[in-house]
């Protein structure tokens, strides 16, 4: 059962990555060619998943859209990890000091912000677009990783092997990098997959309200927004991109769950 979760998650995630990667080399049809006579076709042999209101091939749009989702979500996770993990490690290394206090309270504060509201605020004010979506989603990943790495690193500082490293004269920064970080890497990887899937949902939401990647770059959220008025004429145009989002997010969540069980048996079945 647990193996199955991991395998399903890994397969779905791999398909997602493969589809996004393949879109660079090949798509069934170019995504920027408008072919009005062939619009709103149901799935058939030439257009496997049908066509949208401009006659564009939905499969091709999905493939290129996967690339957009992937890029936004991954860079947002990288921002969150790149800034959050060092902050968390610094806070843990200096636990109880004013530095720890400032970092922890700032985390609490960002946590209290309704993230989507602020993401909308940022993208709306600095202009819609993929870059701003990345920044908006990335900022809210920072406290997640900072909190997690602080909480995971704190108990490690009391362990003998860290004491030994301190006695050997290593600096706090070196200990954090050489001993603490490898020991919390598992947790960070699991949280990374979860934030990755949340990033994909957030990107879809932002581009649905028109604040994500701008036309002509295809994105799953905007495909849904454009299909909304045509849902009675051609339900598949609205259903297919949604299924793509669900499968991708599901795959990443299952992968995260499976990895967590695999990497940390203590956490088994208590996960929320």
């Amino acid at each position: 059962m647990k193996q199955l979760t991991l395998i399903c998650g890994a397969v779905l995630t791999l398909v997602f990555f493969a589809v996004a990667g393949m879109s660079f080399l090949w798509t069934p049809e170019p995504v920027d060619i408008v072919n009005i006579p062939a619009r709103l076709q149901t799935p058939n042999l030439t257009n496997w998943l049908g066509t949208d209101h401009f006659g564009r091939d939905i499969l091709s749009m999905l493939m290129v859209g996967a690339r957009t989702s992937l890029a936004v979500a991954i860079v947002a996770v990288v921002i969150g990890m790149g800034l959050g993990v060092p902050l968390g490690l610094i806070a843990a290394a200096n636990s109880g000091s004013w530095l720890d206090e400032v970092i922890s309270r700032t985390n609490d504060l960002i946590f209290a912000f309704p993230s989507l509201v602020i993401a909308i605020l940022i993208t709306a004010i600095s202009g819609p677009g993929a870059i701003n979506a990345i920044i908006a989603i990335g900022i809210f990943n920072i406290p997640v990783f900072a909190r997690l790495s602080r909480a995971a690193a704190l108990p490690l500082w009391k362990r003998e092997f860290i004491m030994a490293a301190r006695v050997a004269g290593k600096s706090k920064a070196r200990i954090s990098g050489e001993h603490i970080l490898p020991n919390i890497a598992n947790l960070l990887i699991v949280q990374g997959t979860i934030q990755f899937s949340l990033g994909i949902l957030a990107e879809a939401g932002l581009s649905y309200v028109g604040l994500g990647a701008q036309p002509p770059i295809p994105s799953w959220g905007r495909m849904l927004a454009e299909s909304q008025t045509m849902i009675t004429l051609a339900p598949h145009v609205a259903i297919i991109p949604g299924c793509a989002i669900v499968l991708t997010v599901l795959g990443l969540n299952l992968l995260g769950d499976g990895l967590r069980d695999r990497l940390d048996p203590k956490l088994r079945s208590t996960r929320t």
Partner: protein
Amino acid sequence: MITYVSKRLLSLFVSLAVASLIIFAVVEIAPGDPASFMLGVNARPDTVAALKSELGLDVPAFQRYLAWVAGMVQGDFGTSYTYRSPVQQMVLDRLWISLPLALYALALSCLIAFPAGVLAAARRGQLRDTIVTGATQIGVAIPNFWFAMLLVFVFAIKLAWFPAGGFPGWENPVAAMKALTLPAIALALPQAAILTRVMRSALIDILGEDFIRTARAKGLTAGQALWRHGLRNALIPVLTIIGLQFSFLIAGGIIIEQVFYLPGLGRLIFQAITQRDLIVVESVVMLLVFAVIIINFLVDLAYAWVDPRLRRRT
């Protein structure tokens, strides 16, 4: 308890002050000033300057910040640049849609999550548990605005049971509730999935405790032990999550309101952003953040009240 409350109160005020500074700063660095935006590209510089001073935009930023905060403390949220009407009135009008929507969704999410979580925990590892857990996996993976579109397609367009969008006003409570039903279901789905998981794992943790074994040993059935002793103890983490979910419901509501064309706070924010009505944007965002911070504060207090150990920790 008193020291705990005063400490938390202090950090509450600091949070609110910092939050207001951040929001003000973010809005302040926005390109495009409202006066020239309202008058269009062909406006003469002196007209723009006149409107600027009329809107109070010609004073330095920190003075405007202080005036904004001072106004909010007294319940005055300023005057909308575009509509020239008091912001608090605009917010109050919209709040009567957004707040009931969030509460409706919260109620639905609890109604689904409580039985589902209990069912899964009581039958841990069995088929019912697997089905419930699998359903929660799918529930968190579905973007709620897409789920909303599907609900509209099935229940509004095909079956015509509910309206597809818009809001008739509270004069007709039945029609109003009907208009909010599909949005509330869409909003509740991911939250219900998360809450079910929390409920399940909290119950599973509790059912492993010694006092449950004692309850069983004195002759209660598994079901009785769960209902009388397990559920009450499992509610503590569940209540915390419910408090936290409120912020997600507010944020999620913004996008759901777009799907259903509901004239709530979300639409107000979007309108205000496109019209560069910065004072409305600032005030609505501040109000949402305020609500979230206050709710988290109350949840913390409730937690400390229930569990005295937490008071000593901070």
